[in-house]
């Protein structure tokens, strides 16, 4: 098996695994491109519009997140590399890391979670799954 075939097989196997373990859909909330030379946006007067892009299959690594008083709850999301590659390609991003750095958050069950960190697992140099560390909104911290 060639490297390319092995890596794509790993991505497909991961997709199957994610679906089999309760894979679901979340939305990736992306801000619209900034307006060139618009001082109002740079000053926070005008806010960008957002678009929600479907991301599936995904699985929360733990069904129940660790909760502590006064600290934002964090959880880890496993995301199909196939889905990420499709969005990276359609929106012409340079890489998945740029995509996740640009994203405003993950919309999951009407809750907007902030992306704290993103990493990827690779085989033969090609990602087969992405891991997103998410944080609940600060307004929900008690």
């Amino acid at each position, binding site marked *: 098996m060639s490297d390319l075939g092995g890596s794509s097989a790993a991505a497909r196997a991961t997709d199957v695994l994610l679906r089999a373990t309760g894979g679901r859909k979340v939305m990736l909330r992306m801000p*619209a*491109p900034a307006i060139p030379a*618009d001082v109002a946006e*740079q*000053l926070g*007067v005008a806010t*960008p519009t957002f678009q929600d892009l479907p991301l599936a299959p995904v699985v929360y690594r733990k069904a129940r997140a660790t909760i502590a008083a006064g600290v934002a709850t964090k959880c880890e999301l496993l995301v199909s590399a196939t889905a990420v590659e499709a969005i990276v390609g359609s929106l012409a991003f340079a890489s998945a890391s740029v995509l996740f750095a640009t994203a405003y958050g993950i919309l999951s069950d009407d809750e907007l979670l902030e992306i704290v960190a993103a990493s990827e697992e690779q085989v033969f140099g090609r990602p087969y799954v992405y891991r997103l560390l998410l944080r609940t909104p600060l307004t929900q911290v008690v």
Partner: protein
Amino acid sequence: MQNAKDTFYVMLQSRLAALNPSRTIVVRGVVRPGTLVVENELPTGSIPVDVFRMEWTGLRVDSAASLPLVAMECSIGYCTDGTSGDGGMDRGRLLAGMDAELASALGAEPHTAQKMNYSAAGAGVAPIAMGTDVFWADPVFGAVTSVDGRLARTSTVQVFAYQEVGEL
């Protein structure tokens, strides 16, 4: 005081851009001068390198005079990893370059700018000039910190403005 903050940002951004036009940042797909106000951007966990990040960290209001004098502290953070092609060995020089740019921009005369109201400004709409000025002191450069090869410094500058009647 928001008008003073906006005026100071626009002034500093234009001066820094004039000193080094190649210092830019890409924000949501658009290239703009490499100076931003953190509180005006979308929240993000990543810290951009080789740009100036402004944060308003202090506030003092002296109401003794007829026009209250507002003194605000602006923290300007910047960091660099160096040039990857050079193995990061030039990070000290790059940080020194940013030090010099900031010192030059804030030290240049005049130390004042006419306060502008940008609340209604936008594409094709000019800001409204106000009756007083914004003025500032020389910057105070903090110590350099080095974490995992990244050099960072935070400088602070005191910005002053008179709070005009009816101004928020």
